[in-house]
């Protein structure tokens, strides 16, 4: 069993430490960028040398690792951490025609630099891994943490997801048609009926263990699949719910990864149609944008909602008044081909 005990989130919204998700921070030219904290706990000399993904990743993890010294390992999901340094190094290679280059961008360009840095900062010699499977990088990290905690329920892991929007990966995804051509606001986001989404980024950390006491939430089950067929998603979701929802219980809230791309809407509609009519549906990509580990933002929101039993109005697509939110389903898909279902429940 995987229990979430703490969670932190650096995102384009006010989600870090002093959380206020009622007020929306708008995208600028279809980019939602993280609001970075001041990083008072990181020595300036070290901070200056950190690439953005490492910086926000360490920043999100610090409030947890600072107060909790028994971490048994770091399990990270990221699709493009290090991208900015990667392209900076690439630019050096081309511009200096493979001349004498400085290695710092190269060392920071590897996606596992964050996990390494966290190990280094905490002098932690335990399990240390980086999953990079694009839109399912965080999901694979969850599965990894679940397997670890199944074998060692007494252990504590830092489970984290980080992705950054650099000018370069923005450009590559823009050329591929994954971003909207017209500039949109948070309010217009889901009504555009056009292709593409807006870009986003975040760094999110969870302290997870197999122990139930004082847990915020339980990450009860996860399923991933690669497909473009709605039929398969339908079948798999039905099976997932049958297998993982306790008898007599239902999903109270669907957190949907709907991202304003009219080509992908069919998948979200398929999932909505399978679920009970009597269900609240909330969306989040107008807050965080679209990126490979956006599902981690939905899991962070789930923890918030389970704790506070409050959902900001701007998130609601359909609201059913109910006394208690207990079971949350997160459905997300990335670029129409990588899908995940995550079941998060409140532990009473």
């Amino acid at each position: 069993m995987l229990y979430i005990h703490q969670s932190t989130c650096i995102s384009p919204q006010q989600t870090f430490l002093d959380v206020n998700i009622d007020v929306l921070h708008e995208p600028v030219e279809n980019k939602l960028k993280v609001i970075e904290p001041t990083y008072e706990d990181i020595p300036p000399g070290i901070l200056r040398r950190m690439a953005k993904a490492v910086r926000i990743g360490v920043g999100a993890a610090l409030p947890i690792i600072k107060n909790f010294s028994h971490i048994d390992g770091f399990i990270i999901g990221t699709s493009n951490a290090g991208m900015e340094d990667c392209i900076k190094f690439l630019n050096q290679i081309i511009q200096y025609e493979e001349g004498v280059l400085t290695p710092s961008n190269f060392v920071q360009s590897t996606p596992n630099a964050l996990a390494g840095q966290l190990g280094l900062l905490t002098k932690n010699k335990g399990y240390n891994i980086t999953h990079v499977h694009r839109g399912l990088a965080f999901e694979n990290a969850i599965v990894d943490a679940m397997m670890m905690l199944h074998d060692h329920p007494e252990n504590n892991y830092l489970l984290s997801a980080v992705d950054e929007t650099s000018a370069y990966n923005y450009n590559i995804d823009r050329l591929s048609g994954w971003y909207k051509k017209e500039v949109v606001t948070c309010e217009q986001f889901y009504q555009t009926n056009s292709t593409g989404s807006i870009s986003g980024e975040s760094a999110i950390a969870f302290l997870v263990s197999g122990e139930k006491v004082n847990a915020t939430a339980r990450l009860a089950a996860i399923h991933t699949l690669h497909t473009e067929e709605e039929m398969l998603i339908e079948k798999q979701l039905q099976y997932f719910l049958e297998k993982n929802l306790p008898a007599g219980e239902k999903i109270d809230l669907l957190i949907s990864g709907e991202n304003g791309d009219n080509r992908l809407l069919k998948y979200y509609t398929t999932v909505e149609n399978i679920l009970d009519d009597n269900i609240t549906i909330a969306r989040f990509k107008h807050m965080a944008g679209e990126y490979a580990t956006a599902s981690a933002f939905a899991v962070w929101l789930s923890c918030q909602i389970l704790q506070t039993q409050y959902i900001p109005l701007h998130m609601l697509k359909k609201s059913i008044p109910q006394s208690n939110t207990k079971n949350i389903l997160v459905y997300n898909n990335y670029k129409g081909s990588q899908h995940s279902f995550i079941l998060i429940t409140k532990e009473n």
Partner: protein
Amino acid sequence: MISAIGNTVAENRTALQEGKCGITSLSLLSSKYAGIMPFGEIKITTEELKKKLNATEPGVTRTSLLALHAFNEAINDSKLSSEEIISFDTALIGASTVGGMCLTDELYNDANKKDGGSEYLSSYDCASVNIYLQERYKMNGPVNTINTACSSSANAIMYGSRLIKSGRAKRAIVGGVDSLAKFTINGFNALHILSSDICTPFDEQRKGLNLGEGAAFLILEKEEDTIGKKIYAVVSGYCNSNDSFHPSSLSDEGDGPYLAMKGALDMANLRKDEISFINAHGTATENNDAVESTAMLRLFGKVPAFASTKSNIGHTLAAAGAIEAVYSILNLTHQEVYPSLHYNRPITKTGLVPVQTYQKMPLQHVMSNSFGFAGNCSSLIFSTI
């Protein structure tokens, strides 16, 4: 598998027996360092690979092609049926650090361009390799890509084993791939750890590593599911540990390597003297070989026979763990060890001497080490059935 010394497992074995070195000057990849430094380059052009593999999809990269080449051999050898491949309980766990970045110039253009864009827009990331294999074979089970630098595919083997152990998969196709790229060549060169000569693992005068390219895949199943099938070896132990010392070098004491090796031994429930042979990480950098030697001495006292095949094929980064897993299994299957090449004299501080000749040897448990940047250390133990 495919490497600079052979396109199949059988070709690799013959080359290892003969002490063949596939590290040469670059003839296919264009780089300023082509004439200056040797590399473990596979002498088949990307176009030839496409033709040979009938890979006509747009945007397919050399990295994906090398992976497909090895994947096909593994599938054919194991006689996995197409039903088994597409089954929801067949996992694909691959590792890559280069992904589509082998196309350094195309990536530069696509990252900086205003419009247009090449056919490779969705092929640059590490995940693109396994997504290509998944799509080509229409696989439905869990798919993952791991990047822990040079220990990536050792971790892919671990992760696949754990998926099976936990009941999340019935079988797992695990492996890793990397192709040569201007990106990694310039990166390792900027760190001053590339040798201008052919690498000499565990030699006092070693000057650094040679980069190589290759791919290997293995098929893992639970023992009870292997009845009537060809079985090569058992994955009996594994451990992942972080050195937590420096982003790009290992600590003098080698805590990460020591803990990874010790953890794997503990998991396999083996005594130190039961390890018959160590397939060392042995990159031939000043740092790695000294630290790995120290860690082996710390753990074993009397260090078992060991060697590094980096002297045959170079350092294949994310492919290394999987390629060397296959080499370790060849050790066990044929009860033989292959020579570490180009070795001259021991590192003064540690005095360890690798195996230098091909020899038959009774082997029951082989340990394989993989250590990477960011302190990511992993050790695996393979055992006879």
